Structures are given as C-alpha cells and as structure tokens.
C-alpha cells in the first residue's frame, strides 16, 4: 500500500501536475483556435472559421513548411557534428576539452538577437549575399549546444571496453563506430536531434536577420503579424503542428516498437 503510494501515486500525480502546468498555455491556444473571437475573448463560441482561413493561407502554410525543412536540416547537421565532437572529445587533453566544450556551449549564453546581428554584420563584412547557407549555419550554431548536451551525458556512460572488444574482434574504427558506438549512442542522438530540431523550428532572430528576401519561416510570419494583432489562424496552425508531430511520434513508435523505449535517454546497458 505504502509502496504503491510512493512508487506510483505520488510520482504520477506529480507528473500530471507538471504536465498540467506545461500544457496550460498550449490548451488555451488550442481552445482559442476554435473560438470565434479574433481577440481570444470569452465567452467561448465554437467556430472553425480560423481553420478554413488557415487552409487558404498559403503564406502561413509555406512558412510552416519552410520552418520544418530548415529545422530538419539543422537537426541532421547538429547530430552529425555533435556526435563527431563527443567521440573526438575523449582524446583531448583536459584543458583543451574544457575550452572546446565552452566554445560550443557559448551560443547558449549570448542572446540570439546579438548572434544574429553579428552574423549579419559578418556577411556584410565579407560582402556576400544573404542566403540560406548562412541561415542554416546560424541555426546550427544555436542548436548545437542542445544536441551536444544530451550526447555528452550519454558518451560518459558508454563502456570503453565495448569499443575495445569490437576492435579485438577485427572491426575497423569505422565499423566499430557504425555497429557499436552509434547504437549505444542512438537514444542520445535521437534526443539531441529532437532538441536541435525544436530550437531551430522555433527560432525567430536568426532567420529574421539572415533569411533572403522572399523566404519566410513560421516564427517570422508570427512575429510580423504581431504589430497589428495576429488572428487565431496562428493558434490553428500551432494546433495542427502539435497534432502532426504527435502523429509522427506515434507512427515512429509503432514502427520501432519496443525500441521507442530507448528513444529519449533510454536505459544504460
């Protein structure tokens, strides 16, 4: 009974409370997407008006797709870079390791606004055109620390004996990497990619300053509408995105079956 209390009841209630807090604004925004009032005022009166408006709003939809693609590319690059980094990190001397690590973590500690502006100045300094390359580079810079965090935690838990064993069985460094290291790091890679994706997907400052004219992302659209007030179409598209991402995760979960267990963090050995 007591065990049930401490092992099940309290944790569950606690998690539910934390999730309730987390979802408060999300639920508000979802509900308001179905509310007739453009000013999100109560009383609530159900309407699909904003969804039908959204369906016609190509600009917003295209922006959302752009954000998605950009975030995906950023996440992939970050994952590759971060994985390479944590693997090489072990061979660095302590002080080098510290230096490199703080270098990579640095973008977390500078307001992105400043980073974006400095990159803009830099592009101007180099006398280059604004282009998507720099947008991606900027996104990578700010997302990389997040990808790194989850990978670092994991690599420390990786038993070096496994890699040695693989070598002694004749596996080349590459083969060891592919068959031993990557699977062991997989949960962290997925988690890191996920974090990087989210950071990029929601980023306004970098995209805004670096993106070439004629291209837009969802955060840019939202930020630009806010001068005069955005309509609940924005709520509608947010709701759609949440729905789609839940669906994707569910599908991935079904396909990967039990290995979803390992998706985030996962279990050690």
């Amino acid at each position, binding site marked *: 009974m007591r065990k049930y209390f401490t092992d099940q009841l309290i944790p569950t209630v606690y998690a539910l409370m934390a999730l309730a807090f987390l979802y408060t604004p999300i639920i508000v925004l979802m509900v308001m997407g179905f509310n007739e009032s453009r000013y999100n*005022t109560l009383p609530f009166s159900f309407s699909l008006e904003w969804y039908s408006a959204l369906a016609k709003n190509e600009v917003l939809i295209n922006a959302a797709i752009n954000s998605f693609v950009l975030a995906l590319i950023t996440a992939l690059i970050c994952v590759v870079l971060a994985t390479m980094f944590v693997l090489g990190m072990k061979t660095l001397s302590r002080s080098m390791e510290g230096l490199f690590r703080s270098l990579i973590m640095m973008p977390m500690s500078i307001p992105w606004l400043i980073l974006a502006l400095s990159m803009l100045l830099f592009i101007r300094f180099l006398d280059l055109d604004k282009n998507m390359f720099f947008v991606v580079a900027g996104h990578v810079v700010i997302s990389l620390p997040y990808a790194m965090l989850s990978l670092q935690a994991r690599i420390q838990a990786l038993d070096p004996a496994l890699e040695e064993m693989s070598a002694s069985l004749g596996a080349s460094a590459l083969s060891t990497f592919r068959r031993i290291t990557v699977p062991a790091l997989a949960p962290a890679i997925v988690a890191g990619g996920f974090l990087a994706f989210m950071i990029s997907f929601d980023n306004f400052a970098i995209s805004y300053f670096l993106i070439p*004219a004629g291209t837009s992302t969802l955060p840019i659209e939202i930020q630009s509408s806010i*001068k005069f*007030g955005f309509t609940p179409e924005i709520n509608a598209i947010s709701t759609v995105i949440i729905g789609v991402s839940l669906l994707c995760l569910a599908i991935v979960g079904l396909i990967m079956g039990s290995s979803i267990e390992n998706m985030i963090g996962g279990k050690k050995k």
Partner: protein
Amino acid sequence: GGQTAEEEGTDEPATLTVVNWKDYGSDNADFVAAFEAENNCKIVHVYMSSEEELLTKLKTAKDGDIDVCLPNCTILPSAINDGLLLELDTTKLTNFDSLYDRFKVQEESFKDGKMYSVPWVWGSTAIAYNTDEIAAPPSSVSILFDPEYAGKIAIRDDFNDAVMLAAIVLGQDPNNPSDLDAIKAKLIEQKPLNKTYWKTGDEFSKLFAGNQVAVGLMWSGQAAFMKQDGQPIGFVVPEDGAIGWVDTWGIAKGSQNPDLAYKFIDAVISEEFQYDWASTGGPAPVNKDAGEQIDPVYAASCGMDEESLNRLYFMQYRTDDVKKAWNELWTEVKAN
C-alpha cells in the same frame, strides 16, 4: 531584383522587393495580384518589425536586395543622410499631383532641395477608449494621467510616444521638450496607473477586447479596424492634441528595378487604393481626391478629419543624441 522584363515581354517576370509592415495595405493580396498581373512582375514582401530595423535592413542590404521601402518620417532623414535612398523624380508619378499640398512638401522627405520619398499615409497616435465605459470622447490626453482610470490605462512602450505625451500634458513643445526632468517625473507618476505598457497592436487589441484596458494611446488605423470589427472602441484626437505621423515610400539606393518601383509607389498613392484602404479601417490618405470621398462622420471617428489633422503634433526627425536621451529617460521610467 532582376531584369525589367516589360518591354521585351519575356516570360521571366521581374521581382520587386518591398520592405513593409505585415498586413499594412501594401501587402493586400488583391492589390498585389492586380499589380503583378498588370506589370508582369512578382512582388516579394520583406517585413519589418520596427523603424530602426528598416534602417538596419537598408544598411546591411546589398545592391538589388531591396527595391522599395516604407520609412516613417522619424527615421527618414537618417536614411537620406546615410545615402540609403534614391533621389526621386516626381514626374514619373502620375498621381503625385493629387496629393494634399502639405504632403507634397513634407519636410523630412527633402535634403538639399532634393526629394527622396513620397508620403503615403498619415495617422495619429491618440486616445482610444471604451465607449461602454467612457461615454463622452475625452477632451484631453490628461485622461491617461487620471487616477480614476487607474489600472485600466495602457500607453505604448515607446520612448517617443511617452515623451511626446508627457510634453503635451505639461504644455511643452512635444517635438522639442524643454524640461526632460519634469517629463520623467510625470511619466513616473503615471506609471502605476497603467495596466501595462503595450508593445504590439496585438497586445492592446486583446487586452482591450478582454476588458482589461478602458483607455489608452493607440494608432488611429488599428482603432478604426477594431471599431469595424465590432469592438466598442472610440478614437479621438483631443483638444490639446496628440501625436501624428507620416509613412512614406522611398526607393532603395541599390534598386535594380527603379521603374517598377515608381510604378509601385504610383499605384499605392492612387485615388482608388487610398480610398479603398482608408475607408475600410486603414490610416488616413494623402491623396486629396480620396480624402474628399470619405464619409466625414467616419473620418471624424478615426481622427482622419481636417480638425484632428490640425491638432496633431507630427513627429519630427530626431538626432541620435535626442533619441538616446529620450530612450534612456524612458528606460529609467520603466526601471523605476
């Protein structure tokens, strides 16, 4: 930018890059479609989020990045002084003659006698109030300093508006206030009366619609739009005046499509465009023909009438030092 394609009639349409506010007339889908069809071009919108940021965009742009832009009179001289805009030839604008005379000679548009931008719309930042709570239109901006409305007031989080507002109340020249300390004290005194300092139109409209704010400083255009949308909102430029502003169009120095840019500007100052927008919740027109067609009752209700126009203190260009001083003053008020 790209090649102008009109003469040869090739399939490749030219692109015109326009820096403007989102949902601010010039990006109206119908208008854009019609313009594109007529001129066989493609308009690309780049949105700005503040006036200063437009300057940033112009300064960091490369040739061809931007064709047309929408500077406000407060930053216009900066842009002109930094050589960011092209000198204009008004003879290329068929609708220029229809402008109210005062806008043909808008001081900030000129440097050394040369014109660099064309006024487009004007408006006021004045008193918006909830007609359910406040029956009669306020006659003075001092309503924003009235403790009776404590907690229901929202002025804008903007150093320029704040300083000018306090100057009007204190009887100083809003464009050249004589006693900044008094202004600061006045604003600090006013601070607790606010529900919030609003930053974006979105905030104000939602708080207003949610009955959180009964009276505040607001843009005429947005107030007109909200009124049309059924909000119980009244708008007035009170007797002691309010803040006026003028938005203008300029052509970026590096534009590769100046001819198309002229066409664009000409289109947005046309009688048709100006009337359509002003009568459906947009700001006031600079085109005289358009202005005269607007229902005078409607015009009065959104401060577009002649009387309101005459009460306004139009924002003037400010030097960097003034801006810095005002901004610091405002920061101190907010930090207080």
